[in-house]
């Protein structure tokens, strides 16, 4: 048995081939595999993205650099990696809420956000979010964007991966980055959920 080192592309294709063969033969089902992935999908990444957001919330200069060039600003924090190239951060404001999707496959800024959740790859999400974003957010994610706020949906591709800089919640004046960190959720950086609640 030889396990010669393959390129990332080769090995990724081999794993995909294995998976589709096993599913075809009825040996296992996609939900069984997805279930396992779900357990670990938060393992890598979201904490890194949260770190970037907490810093942007506390440091206006960093935030300006992040919006100017997310790839470079993330590198300042030692966050990068091949697929993290050409990241663009979309800032949520009082008037605009951003959501990301990959309409064709599952392009995702995974060095920052970790592995995409299963639903992100689902054709249903991919199609629905660009058709009726407000409704999908409300009905599938139980997340209501106020009517007075515009919703923009951005399509990530392998050349340009988007992610969302949520608004810093009210009531956090004077908080340190460490205190802000746990408020940043993965879903808030995809644009499908709120940041954590500030306990008063």
């Amino acid at each position, binding site marked *: 048995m030889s396990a010669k*080192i393959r390129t990332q592309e080769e090995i990724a294709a081999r794993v995909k081939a294995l998976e589709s063969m096993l599913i075809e033969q009825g040996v296992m089902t996609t939900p069984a595999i997805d279930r396992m992935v779900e357990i670990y999908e938060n393992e890598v990444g979201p904490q890194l993205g949260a770190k970037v957001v907490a810093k942007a919330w506390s440091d206006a200069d960093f935030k300006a650099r992040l919006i100017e060039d997310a790839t470079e600003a993330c590198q300042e924090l030692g966050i990068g990696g091949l697929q993290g190239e050409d990241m663009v951060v979309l800032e949520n404001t009082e008037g605009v809420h951003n959501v990301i999707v990959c309409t064709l496959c599952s392009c995702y800024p995974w060095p920052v956000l970790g592995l995409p959740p299963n639903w992100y790859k689902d054709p249903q999400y991919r199609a629905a979010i660009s058709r009726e974003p407000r409704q999908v957010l409300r009905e599938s994610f139980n997340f209501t964007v106020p009517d007075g*706020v515009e919703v*923009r949906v951005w399509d990530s591709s392998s050349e340009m991966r988007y992610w969302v800089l949520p608004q810093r919640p009210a009531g956090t004046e004077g908080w340190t980055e460490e205190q802000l960190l746990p408020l940043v959720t993965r879903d808030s950086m995809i644009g499908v959920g709120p940041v954590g609640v500030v306990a008063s």
Partner: protein
Amino acid sequence: MTSRTTLPSPGSSAAELGEARREIENLVCGMPGGDPDQMGFQHPWEIRAFAMAVAAHQELKFDWSEFQKALIASIQDWQTANPDAGESPWSYYQHWVAALEAVLADAGLLSRTEVDLQTQELLALPPNRNHHEAHTEPIAVDLARTVHV
């Protein structure tokens, strides 16, 4: 175990996930390189491969020790072939994939040749079709609605 619907559902509670995770950790802590700290995933395929091995074990009811042995064998083969281990690139999950293939081939469920063929076919497809182009504008905008008070 509830089956997963496509969009997030309250189906899997944190407690359920925690329980499933403990079961998996019991499996992996006896593996070579099974220190959870070393098992971090760096690439999406790694998590798929990891999940497939655990799912195969659960669905096919093969003995986990078979997979363990195959993994050890794959790593040992590699070490024999690369005595200068410090200098060669190392990928834990490539061994994981090799071990999974070995177990499934032993069970007569697939042949390496078939996997090779299917892999070549996938590699021949253009990656992400036309998704290499950057999309610099939002693909959908749902304008703010005037709120009448």
